């Protein structure tokens, strides 16, 4: 199994640990990943706010490049995943957008075939690799670790291609296969407010606080995320968000939890980059780690 890998800008910056753990896990599962050569920023939500059509053109360049590789394209960042899909759909559904984008691609000598299959690692792990293969790789069971799986928005809305839109369970099933206990977290698809913590701090903090308090309320020991911005929001402001309750909750990428279960050294999975260390929780749960 081989996939073209689209990291996106965040996975090279604040979301570095996501890339590290992702590569380590896929390597352990013997799934080959090849980074898309000369990929450009997909535009994400910010460029869409600046100019929608330009952002479709930018994303389309990646799709055109990816199609040429002849393999499925994996986009771990939820915003990239959504942006790429949206581009594919809107170029097809709105002829005038299609015209502008295809004209631009042709102008720079690119093919206008954007029909590459865009996948998410959760989708690939569950449906291509399969739970039995994953279970077979588990050397240190997560021993009932209480995990709140947090999907956020853009992975399930508006396109829910491999999971239920309102009650997603893909991450749940994956982590349960590694021995984790998935808590019933009702806020699992509620928005973390994205970049608002930086631009409108009071608004951002309020959302983050609720999500953290919600996780604690249902007994989570850790939160598993799929989006670099969600992960950052939930872990970087826990002191600010604490009031009556002190938040000290490790927030990991789901790939990092998989890495722990697979016995991959913590450093390889980027766990030293967390602001709230997972190690005390692992120790408490008697989960061996390297």
């Amino acid at each position: 199994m081989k996939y073209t890998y689209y990291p996106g800008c965040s996975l090279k910056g604040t979301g570095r640990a996501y890339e590290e753990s992702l590569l380590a896990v896929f390597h352990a599962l013997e799934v080959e990943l090849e980074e898309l050569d000369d990929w450009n920023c997909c535009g994400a939500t910010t460029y869409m706010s600046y100019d929608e059509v330009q952002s479709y053109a930018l994303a389309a360049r990646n799709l055109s490049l990816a199609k040429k590789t002849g393999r499925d394209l994996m986009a771990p960042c939820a915003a990239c995943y959504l942006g790429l899909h949206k581009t594919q759909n809107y170029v097809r559904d709105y002829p005038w957008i299609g015209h502008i984008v295809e004209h631009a691609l042709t102008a720079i000598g690119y093919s206008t075939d954007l029909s590459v299959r865009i996948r998410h690692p959760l989708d690939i792990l569950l449906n291509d690799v399969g739970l039995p293969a994953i279970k077979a790789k588990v050397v240190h069971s997560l021993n009932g670790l209480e995990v709140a799986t947090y999907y956020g928005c853009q992975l399930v809305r508006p396109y829910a291609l491999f999971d239920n839109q309102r009650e997603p369970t893909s991450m749940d099933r994956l982590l349960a296969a590694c021995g984790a206990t998935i808590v019933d977290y009702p806020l699992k698809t509620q928005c973390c407010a994205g970049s608002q913590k930086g631009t409108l701090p009071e608004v951002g903090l309020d959302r983050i606080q609720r999500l953290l308090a919600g996780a604690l309320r249902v007994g989570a020991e850790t939160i598993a995320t799929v989006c670099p911005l969600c992960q950052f929001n939930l872990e970087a402001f826990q002191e600010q968000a604490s009031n009556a309750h002190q938040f000290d909750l490790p927030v990991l990428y789901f790939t990092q939890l998989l890495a722990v279960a697979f016995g991959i050294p913590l450093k390889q999975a980027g766990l030293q980059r967390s602001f709230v260390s997972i190690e005390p929780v692992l120790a408490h749960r008697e989960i061996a780690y390297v």
Partner: protein
Amino acid sequence: MELKRIVKFEAERDPAFARWITQNPGGERIRHCLQCGLCSASCPLSLWMDYTPRRLMHLSREGFKEEVLSSYTIWLCTSCYACAVECPKGIKVTDLMYALKARAIQEHFYPKRFAIPELAREFSRMILGWGRITESRLVMRVFFKTGLMRLIGFSYLGLRLLRTGRMRWAREKVSRQTEIIGLLQDVAATRKELAR
């Protein structure tokens, strides 16, 4: 008691704005909006908005451009798509919020040094220059533009990011940047054509 006389004359409406919103992708069904309020109710940020998403939809389709583009609503939207998914009439509210935001940025409908449009502008500049975003540099530029004082507040977080290796200064870039520039230039040209 500061009295204000408010009556909206038809001459003040902007029919072109109303037409523009219906022609936007996602706005095809805006005439079907029943004003049920489900968008506002499912929006996590509606608590802070001066005009709830529902109100903004009606104001937009009626052509009240001033109110719409100067609202807080469009800046508060984090595009979580909850409204678009729940809307019983299939109106893609999120797409319309993007369009309104973009229009407000283009037409400078925001207070000076407001972080969100500045972020959008810097983001686009960085793409035009390098094709990819280097987060640390982007954040710095936005701070310079919107208030250096905020940088101080950010410093603690900044140090933590540095320590954990999550703040990288090396410029992320595309090797064939001319393609990016060419792409964006062509888009602009085609649109000019279509506008004629």
